[in-house]
């Protein structure tokens, strides 16, 4: 399966999906004009990989800022992880957020409560200081 790489723009994050390494990274800003069009190819590629037997994926979410439409897309993405994990994929999600960014941390916590087969670990976003 091919690696998917999208360079960051002012309004969209860098995406690196590396099936061989079992890694997915979302890094940067997310307030695209058309959220579905941006996230759809990522969801499709990730889903195709996660339906393979024995798939393992570590997801790192390092979004400095995301708007409410992106929050909806991230919810869909996490629901997808949960569904594939229920089928047997081994997935872990690490969500990086600033210490003082309560609203983003609460969002990740609320998502985590709803996920039955995947856990979201919250980590400190520091490198963008």
């Amino acid at each position, binding site marked *: 399966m091919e690696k998917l790489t999208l360079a960051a723009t002012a309004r969209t994050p860098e995406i690196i999906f590396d099936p061989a390494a079992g890694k997915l990274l979302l890094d940067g800003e997310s307030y695209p004009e058309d959220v579905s069009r941006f996230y759809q190819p990522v969801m499709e590629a990730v889903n195709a990989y996660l339906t393979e037997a024995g798939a393992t994926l570590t997801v790192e979410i390092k979004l400095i800022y995301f*708007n*409410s439409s992106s929050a909806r897309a991230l919810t869909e993405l996490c629901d997808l992880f949960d569904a594939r994990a229920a089928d047997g994929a081994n997935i872990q999600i690490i969500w990086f957020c600033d210490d003082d960014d309560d609203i983003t941390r609460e969002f990740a916590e609320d998502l985590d409560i709803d996920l039955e087969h995947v856990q979201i670990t919250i980590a400190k976003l520091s490198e963008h200081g």
Partner: protein
Amino acid sequence: MEFDRFHHFASLLIEDDFVLTYSGYVTEDILQAIGDTLRQQLLVKSHNRNQVRNLFSVFVELMQNVIRYGDEGPQPSLSTPAQKPVGLVLVAQNGQQINLLTGNYVTNDEANALQEKVNFLNTKSAEELRQIYYERLRQPPDNASKGASIGLIEIARRSSTPLQCAIKDTGEDCCFIMIKAGV
């Protein structure tokens, strides 16, 4: 516009310690350009990164609100057939607090619906807003339901004072709606 009126306009802005203002057609490209400038300026003015984050978030949601629901309004139209939303945005500093105001033309129905949503959100606590936000995320976007849009809930959550909303009749089939948020 004569110099006198133009100067009057400028002097009104100088009365407040304003950070930034824009008026005209609002597009995603303009949102990004002003947003970048705003964030850079605020990082110099405010040492509170959380305040800058919240303000930028409120700014993006308000501007996207104008883009999605905005109307061209009563002013003479350009020759382009597609309607482009026209809006004003003003960011002003009042002591520690930074206020963000947008004004734009919407249909009368949309203005009334927006006013109701603002009033509804203003009755909610921070914890209730967190719940409403999360519930709304899991509902289909932009259906005709009465629920407040996710963007408006985001604005309410990131503001430190209740949202204010005022509507001015234009005498035509649209009106001018103003929203004020404080961060």
